[in-house]
């Protein structure tokens, strides 16, 4: 059984209450950090741990914290991004529902490290139960003296607020989140300036994912070096993976980074294989915005190495044959799933969630959605497939925020890897309405490297 850091006590009855959480070793890191460490030492410890942002981009958290501008006489803010809305990702909601004090503990330590006197947890509006859970937990922590004025007699003050959002996907982008937090329309800001220089109310701000902040707790408890031992290479520590799709045991799993993908899908400790005895066709490894991969490429890299659940291994092969760990939304598709329909569904989501600020994303997502709809419902043309690739290229990289890229990648990668299925949809529109393309050759063993190299 792999070691668990975040979900260690998840099955203890009543862990969502302050007393039980405290009895199980909760808030040790707050005592340790506030009484024995300086803020810079905490930042240094996080740097040593090699913790990388768990929200999707995988940027080293310690680096992000050390970039925070510290001008005299200006407030600094820590904002926790709990606006989890990526299709396929539900780890933050799980964490906040069952063990809210872990997040609050992490928030106190992280705010102390950054010197923030006020911190916010920006929760997605749809997660009303979690907002209530967090607010109750904050009240408990406050009455126990872990929040408010002069925490544990250290002279450090912290106020923690929960801010419900309006439930827009775009508000998970850090500058849009800041705009929304300020009470404005959630449009992403144009960078630079980055939030580390000018964020909430033009003050220096750090925005971190829920899981990143929660991971600070074991780092402070056990030390950064201890944390860095877990994991694989530059992907240190553990990661929550939200496994969904056609799996025998979908759910939230805490894995040590570096577990082979094959083990994650098929071992009984994790997902337990594909449901109903079917075969695996494709996997979206990190939430809907990362490239989709066919079964043969997700289990092995083109070099013939087994693919591991880590930042590096999943992105091995770049856009040609790799994907990304993203936020850990692991969606498995069995042989009866239609990739065209799935791509259309993702595209529809991005069309609906585009904020409409910059033109490539505003118009391009709608265009892709309409073309994919036409393909799925049997009115497509062969030229549509190349058109989609072209439109996705026009969007990718030309937008203000990463939503444009996130909308373009699933479409581009689905066509790159599943072109046969798209062409079959065009060639046999009637049949495509009645049955699915099936597994085809997508799970076949990869060709030898020489052949792949010559094709490229």
């Amino acid at each position, binding site marked *: 059984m792999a070691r668990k850091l975040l979900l260690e006590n998840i099955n203890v009855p009543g862990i969502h209450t302050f007393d039980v959480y405290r009895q199980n070793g909760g808030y040790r890191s707050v005592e340790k950090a506030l009484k024995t460490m300086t803020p810079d030492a905490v930042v240094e410890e996080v740097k040593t741990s090699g913790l990388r942002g768990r929200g999707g981009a995988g940027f080293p958290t310690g680096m992000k914290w050390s970039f925070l501008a510290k001008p005299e006489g200006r407030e600094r803010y820590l904002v926790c991004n709990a606006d989890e809305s990526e299709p396929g990702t539900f780890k933050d909601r799980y964490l906040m529902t069952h063990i809210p004090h872990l997040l609050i503990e992490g928030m106190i330590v992280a705010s102390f490290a950054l010197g923030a006197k006020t911190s916010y947890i920006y929760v997605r509006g749809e997660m009303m139960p979690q907002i209530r859970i967090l607010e109750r937990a904050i009240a408990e922590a406050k009455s126990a003296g872990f929040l408010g004025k002069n925490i544990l007699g250290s002279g450090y003050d912290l106020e923690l607020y929960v801010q419900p959002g309006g439930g827009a996907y775009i508000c998970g982008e850090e500058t849009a989140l800041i705009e929304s937090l300020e009470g404005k329309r959630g449009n992403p800001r144009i960078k630079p300036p980055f939030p580390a220089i000018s964020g909430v109310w033009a003050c220096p701000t750090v925005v971190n994912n829920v899981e990143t902040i929660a991971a600070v707790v074991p780092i402070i408890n056990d030390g950064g070096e201890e944390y860095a031992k877990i994991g694989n290479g530059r992907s240190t520590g553990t990661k929550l993976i939200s496994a969904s799709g056609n799996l025998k045991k979908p759910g939230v799993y805490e894995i040590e980074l570096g577990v082979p993908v094959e083990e994650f899908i098929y071992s009984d400790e994790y997902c337990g294989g594909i449901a109903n005895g079917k075969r695996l066709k494709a996997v979206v490894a990190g939430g809907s915005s990362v490239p989709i991969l066919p079964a043969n490429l997700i289990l092995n890299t083109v070099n013939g190495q087994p693919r591991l659940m880590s930042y590096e291994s999943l992105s091995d092969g770049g856009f040609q044959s790799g994907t990304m760990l993203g936020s850990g939304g692991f969606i498995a598709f069995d042989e009866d799933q239609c990739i065209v329909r799935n791509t259309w569904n993702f595209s529809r989501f991005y069309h609906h969630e585009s904020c409409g600020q910059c033109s490539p994303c505003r118009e391009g997502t709608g265009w892709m959605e*309409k073309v994919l709809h036409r393909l799925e419902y049997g009115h497509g043309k062969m030229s549509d497939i190349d058109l989609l690739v072209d439109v996705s290229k026009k969007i990718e990289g*030309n937008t*203000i925020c990463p939503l444009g890229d996130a909308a373009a990648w699933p479409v581009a990668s689905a066509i790159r890897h599943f072109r046969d299925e798209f062409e079959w949809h065009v060639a046999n529109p009637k049949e495509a309405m009645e049955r699915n393309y099936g597994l085809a050759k997508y799970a076949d063993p990869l060709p030898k490297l020489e052949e792949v190299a010559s094709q490229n």
Partner: protein
Amino acid sequence: MSDKVKVTIDGITVEVEPGTSILNAARQIGGDIVPPAMCYYSKLEGSGGKCRTCLVKVSKGSEKDPRPMPKLVASCRIGVMDGMEVQNITSPEVIEARKGVVEILLINHPLDCPICDQAGECHLQDLSYAHGVGNSRYEFERRTFDKIDIGDKIQLHMTRCILCYRCVYVANQITDNRLHGILGRGDASEISTYIEKAIDNDFSGNIIDVCPVGALTDKTFRFKNRVWFTKPVDAHRDCPTCKGNVTLWYKGDEVLRVTGRKDQFGEVEDFICNTCRFETKNTSSWIIEGPRHIAQTSVISANHYEFVPLPVIKENQVLIEANKVEFERATKI
């Protein structure tokens, strides 16, 4: 010298104040290398970055950090650094991306130029003529909206809007509370004052001038005439609210329209008040300064009386020779 920074755009070096955007540095050089801008407006704080037509490639970040920027950047919002090297029309990547942006801007824009008042002075027309492709690959229904009146003098035709947000910034600057903004999101978003409220301000008419397309039009001029049949004349008057420097657009001896004076980048020099714009349409109220210079590339300059005659052929020996040859050829046949 010391506080100026050097930036090279398409091989032309210019020294500008620190903090200038790449676009403004390019405008100081002028000519073909100026990136087009549909949403940026130098007089509106916070504008820009939205339309993505001004994308350029930064091939060298600065003297200190010579790494190129990974993506194309919006030149209107990125400040120059010392030693920065920028590629605009010399980069095929930029040209390709711009072509894509133009196509994407046009997919939901109705091509109703023949009945649009903006035709002839429309930035989107110029942009698509210069950078776009002849036909669109978009085969679906375009979004349409009903026309809305914003006050009794301004009409909003959302169907033509490209959501550049310029009018929103104007409204934010001239009014205390937010009256004019965006409703909805994605390609369903629309500019609105919410339930046809009027923008009650003396300067509200300027949202017509800043609009790059025909989405906001002057109701006192709608369908009166095509702009290229009217003659622009600079004039001023002693106005208690604004500076009173305007351009009058004449047809015969009748003033059809009053606008701000637009410079070569299509930006007004001074914002003018609604009294000047909508209500002062007789020549006697104005002191005429002279004809307004219109760029040769503009359709409005056709049949323009500010015409400089070409050098007389008789003086040009080469042309005389060429004419002789041509005349002989023509008469032979």
